[in-house]
């Protein structure tokens, strides 16, 4: 039973590490601002869930698990909100969504 929980948390942590890496790669390599934001924001939420739940399984029933739950709740509340605010203010300031690679819009 104990080793089953260990294996499960290792799987979750490895998947979370993979998601983190894919998100960083996408944010660096994709051609245009909105596609970069797509890669970064989605994998942020998914990796937070996977890594924090994986650590929570290792922590067991303790104060640390409650703190991890609070961190997860805050990340899940604030991550999508920050992404929405970022996309909204980029759109309002005239950065057009499209499928072309972006020309340098320095402002």
């Amino acid at each position, binding site marked *: 039973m104990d080793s089953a929980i260990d294996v499960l948390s*290792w799987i979750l*942590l*490895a998947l*979370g*590490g*993979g998601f*983190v*890496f894919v*998100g*960083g*790669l996408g*944010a*660096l390599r994709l051609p245009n*601002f909105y596609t*970069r*934001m797509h890669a*970064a924001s989605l994998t*942020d939420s998914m*990796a*937070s869930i996977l*890594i*924090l739940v994986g*650590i929570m399984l*290792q*922590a067991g029933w303790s*104060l*640390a698990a409650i*703190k*991890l739950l*609070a*961190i997860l709740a*805050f*990340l899940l509340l*604030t*991550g999508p*909100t*920050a*992404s929405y*605010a*970022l996309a909204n*203010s*980029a759109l*309002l*300031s*005239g*950065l057009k969504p499209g499928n072309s690679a*972006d020309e*340098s*819009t*320095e*402002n």
Partner: protein
Amino acid sequence: MYYIVSIAILITMALALTRALLGPSVYDRVLAVNMFGTKTTLLLSVIAFLYGRPDFLDLALTYALINFIGVLAVLEFFQSRSIRRANNRVDGS
């Protein structure tokens, strides 16, 4: 196992910093900084268990909150600046 995850998070933080340096627009930089902050929170939680010091979880909690407020403040600044510039352009022409 914690080592592998923390190394993956550190590599991703380096990639996010590269994106923040490359730009090209301001919003790319804000996106990279936001991502960097989230990854810092995750890294602090992993390090708390890697070294067996649960105090670090309080730091992670604080960092998650401060990062969100900071990103919103920066976005508010750039948004009002771009609106002001657009108004100036209309008035000046």
